[in-house]
């Protein structure tokens, strides 16, 4: 199938893009890498009158370092994030998760910002971004910008703090230099969406866990951060037994979906198994 007819707008700057959004309001859709939006348009799940393509806005692409923070432009492709030595060194968890996204062709086009704003709960970028304590810079009308903390960014299924007339412009990731990282994704076929995914990054000291961050994919309507498990892991030796006990409650308070891939209870069980594996791998055990 082909999409319904729309008018195409390709602004050259964030300012122009915001103006186009203001003009066309909810009859417009923003096109980032298009790897989720184009299938949606083709299947006619959405039929906007206008598509605003951010692909020609150079200022939204690229990765820079500002002191203890990595600044990733919203239109940076998955492939560019994977190719970044800075991300590999200072936010390895992001690289590990993005390696599992879809397939190479999709990773060449798909963007980190597009994925975050699309906010599919089975997408693999939200959980590591939350676990790393990322902040999200959002541009609005009149040159305004605001910064939203991770916990306030994801609001519900396919819904984020990015409002109508606004654009996500940057993801700011605090450096986690020297932290081990692992993303444990459970799927039936290789380029499927996560049935459950666990993002874990760990700072080790002398064989035990000094600090840990854990994010959960597809365990509810938004990505989640498992703070109780993070606290329980502090000071534990990186052994199967100790980690198993510390992560046992990871599914408490979550509300994962039931679908053809498994019911809610199955996902809760999976989460405990995958979290143990992810934490142990992140700790190098």
């Amino acid at each position, binding site marked *: 199938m*082909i999409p319904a007819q729309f008018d*195409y707008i390709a602004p050259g700057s964030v300012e122009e893009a915001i103006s186009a959004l203001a003009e066309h309001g909810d009859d417009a859709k923003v096109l980032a890498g*298009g790897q989720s939006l*184009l*299938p949606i348009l083709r299947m006619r799940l959405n039929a906007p009158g206008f598509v605003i*393509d951010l692909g020609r806005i150079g200022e939204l692409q690229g990765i820079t370092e500002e002191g203890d923070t990595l600044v990733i432009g919203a239109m940076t492709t998955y492939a560019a994030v994977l190719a970044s030595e800075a991300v590999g060194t200072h936010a390895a968890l992001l690289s590990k998760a993005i390696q599992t996204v879809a*397939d*190479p*062709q999709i990773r060449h086009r798909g963007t980190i910002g597009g994925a975050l704003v699309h906010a599919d709960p089975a997408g693999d970028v939200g959980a590591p971004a939350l676990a790393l304590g990322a902040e999200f810079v959002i541009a609005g009308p009149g040159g305004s910008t605001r910064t939203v903390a991770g916990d306030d960014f994801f609001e519900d299924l396919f819904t984020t703090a990015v409002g109508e007339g606004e654009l996500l412009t940057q993801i700011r990731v605090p450096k986690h230099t020297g932290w081990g990282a692992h993303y444990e994704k459970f799927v039936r076929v290789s380029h499927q969406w996560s049935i459950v995914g666990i993002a874990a990054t760990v700072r080790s000291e002398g064989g035990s866990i000094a600090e840990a961050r854990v994010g959960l994919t597809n365990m509810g309507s938004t990505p989640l951060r498992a703070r109780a498990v993070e606290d329980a892991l502090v000071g534990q030796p990186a052994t199967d037994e100790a980690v198993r006990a510390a992560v046992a409650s990871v599914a408490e308070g979550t509300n994962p979906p039931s679908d053809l891939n498994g019911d809610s209870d199955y996902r809760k069980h999976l989460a405990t198994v995958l979290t143990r594996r992810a934490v142990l791998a992140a700790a190098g055990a």
Partner: protein
Amino acid sequence: MSRITVIVDGVSYTDEVEPRTLLVHYLRETVGKTGTVVGCDTSNCGACTVHLDGTSVKSCNVLAVQADGHEVTTIEGLSENGELHPVQKAFHECHALQCGYCTPGMIMQACDVLKNNPNPSEQEIREGLEGNLCRCTGYHNIVKAVQQAAGELSSQAVSS
């Protein structure tokens, strides 16, 4: 309608297209590059894989207007002076096809894999081709062909 200029297999084309036109339909129906096929039409199967500015993409998942000002290589642009590209030759020699429908996309993606990793392991080849489905399940000979092409390309690199 939007006016776009795209270099396809080394030739520049300027055309009026509807913004909703998918790149794969532009290539097949306007430019006439029917070597690139539509498989699943849901961005899963990879049969429509082409190179956009030298990088593999699924052309059913890109709008033609997004390719404006860019360069596309299809399966029809791989051979040089009537000589098959080493990956095409290896697919032929290793019988890396059964019905042949996935072959254009498989070859384009195999070229991308080898560009980034000239000497891939079997596992790396399989992971590099994870977005390309062969419904005849003929993966074994496809992997063998990519291995043979890797050897051919690296010996070319040494001798040149």
